[in-house]
């Protein structure tokens, strides 16, 4: 079909952009170290350069890819499921609930005893809100119901997160609250990567397996079923995949919003409107966006006081608004 060349080119461009952004993320940071020393440090240097390269820069740059890929792919799949460009993990409340799960795991000492419990709790939190999405989509809820339910779920999850933080008698509660609400890749550790990458990869694979079904849903639910699609299974895979990927990403980086909304929308122009064709490119595009945003905040505020989610929300929220206006004008 036509457009296949454009799609391949888009993937190639995204890959090249990701490599460049990843290198920039690895090379730019508060400590002023020559690129040569950093690369040498990757392979066994014992000095400061080695520690910074292996324990700080590499995990941070890699985690940006994991988080961006999780959010981008989740957004593309949710938009396909709801047949609506407003759907994404942040707006639907999935990230807030994942954050709540993570907070519970951390501040009640569970994650200290067993680090695996951190992503597990975040994924369970995400599953809770994703379950609400499942019910909504099964009842054929429209965009307004989805967004409003997302607002309600996110507000409750944010309040419960604040409640959990205040019960935990944590002197840094306020700072931590900001982290969970806005998200950041600062202080990423190698272990963050080990715990978030596998669920994210599995989640994205689940989402991709639902791609055909999401395409068929373009025709409506009954037509999709008449084409042999098990719509219940498609819904289950999207909800499960989103919970795994977004949950694991949020456990490490906090709530980074709007990536899942912006990326698929931009890529539709190049990859077409079929949901199956957007999931993998959106994972790549999300990785590029989050990595670039994470480099940008280090350039804007080298002291590390600017949070990643601040930048994505400042880009994404006006976009959200614009999208609502445009959708209103179309209908």
């Amino acid at each position, binding site marked *: *079909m*036509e*457009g296949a060349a454009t799609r391949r080119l888009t993937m190639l461009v995204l890959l090249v952009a990701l490599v460049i952004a990843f290198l920039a993320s690895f090379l730019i940071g508060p400590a002023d170290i020559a690129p040569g020393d950093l690369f040498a440090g990757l392979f066994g240097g014992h000095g400061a350069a080695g520690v910074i390269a292996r324990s700080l820069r590499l995990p941070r740059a890699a985690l940006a890819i994991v988080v961006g890929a999780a959010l981008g792919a989740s957004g593309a799949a949710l938009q396909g499921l709801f*047949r609506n460009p407003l759907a994404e993990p942040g707006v639907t409340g999935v990230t807030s609930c994942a954050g709540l799960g993570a907070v519970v795991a951390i501040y009640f000492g569970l994650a200290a005893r067993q680090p695996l419990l951190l992503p597990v709790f975040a994924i369970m939190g995400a599953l809770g809100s994703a379950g609400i999405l499942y019910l909504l989509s099964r009842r054929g809820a429209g965009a307004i119901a989805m967004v409003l339910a997302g607002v309600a779920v996110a507000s409750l999850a944010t309040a419960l997160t604040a409640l959990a933080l205040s019960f935990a008698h944590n002197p840094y509660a306020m700072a931590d609250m900001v982290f969970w609400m806005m998200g950041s890749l600062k202080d990423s550790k190698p272990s963050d990567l080990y715990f978030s990458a596998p669920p994210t990869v599995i989640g994205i694979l689940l989402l991709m*397996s639902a791609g*055909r079904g999401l*395409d*068929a*849903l*373009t*025709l*409506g639910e*009954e*037509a999709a*079923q*008449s*084409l*042999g*699609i*098990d719509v219940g299974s498609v819904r289950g895979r999207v909800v499960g995949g989103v919970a795994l990927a977004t949950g694991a990403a949020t456990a490490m980086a906090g709530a980074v919003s709007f990536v899942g909304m912006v990326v698929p929308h931009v890529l539709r122009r190049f990859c*077409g*409107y*079929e*949901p199956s064709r957007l999931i993998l490119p959106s994972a790549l595009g999300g990785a590029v966006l989050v990595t670039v945003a994470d480099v940008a905040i280090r350039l804007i505020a080298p002291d590390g006081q600017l949070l990643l989610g601040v930048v994505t929300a400042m880009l994404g929220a006006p976009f959200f608004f614009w999208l609502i206006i445009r959708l209103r004008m179309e209908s």
Partner: protein
Amino acid sequence: MSAAVKFEGVSAAYGARTVLANVGAAFPAGAVTGIVGPNGAGKTTLLRVALGLMPMSAGQVVVLDRPLAQWSRGGLAKALAYLPQGSDAHWPLLARELVALGRLPHRAAFAPLAAADMQAVDAALARCDATAFSSRRMSELSAGERARVLFARALATGAPVLLADEPAAYLDPAHQLGLMALLRDEAARGKAVAVTLHDLSLASRHCDEIIVLSEGHNAAQGAPAAALSDATLAQVFGIAAERAGDGGVRAIRRL
């Protein structure tokens, strides 16, 4: 004419409300079967039951000589093509991409469109006279053009049975006639075509067989002139018909 789809004593209910009661009917191959009846008579439900989208409380449906229960999901998708009421595209796909969705039952997971799929898509577009705008987006097409593309999607499935729910509902008269001509073409190719219609004149002129449903019951069936008799029209619809020389319904008025 052999029956491609047979309903044997089919009953179905939404909760406590019975929508089909002991319906016996058949969609013969090579013919257009029109399903008519007042709102809520069970027309859509009859199609949904045949598609396995709605459970039966009694009776059985036989599709291509095999009971519905013995069909696999994928097998049934290749046997029955369905055009639901008020069909539309939720994303502005290219018309061609949309028609290609009809090939999903024939494709393995992650497999690209094969040459046979492409051929089926091209043929379906050509039969619906939609080739000219096949590389335009659905959002850029007129309602009549969109209806043709959506119909082509159902044809691309290549199923021997075509079920269409109110396909004429939102079309202007010229497009309605064009659509009925397409349905007749498919029947002439040996397919069993079943279509729910509100327009009795369209039904009586373009269908070979008529099934009249009334409150879930099978009120009449047979050739149009017989099934849409004055007595049936009065009893089921509460209307009288003015007829053309061939017995077809020309105009209707309230009783």
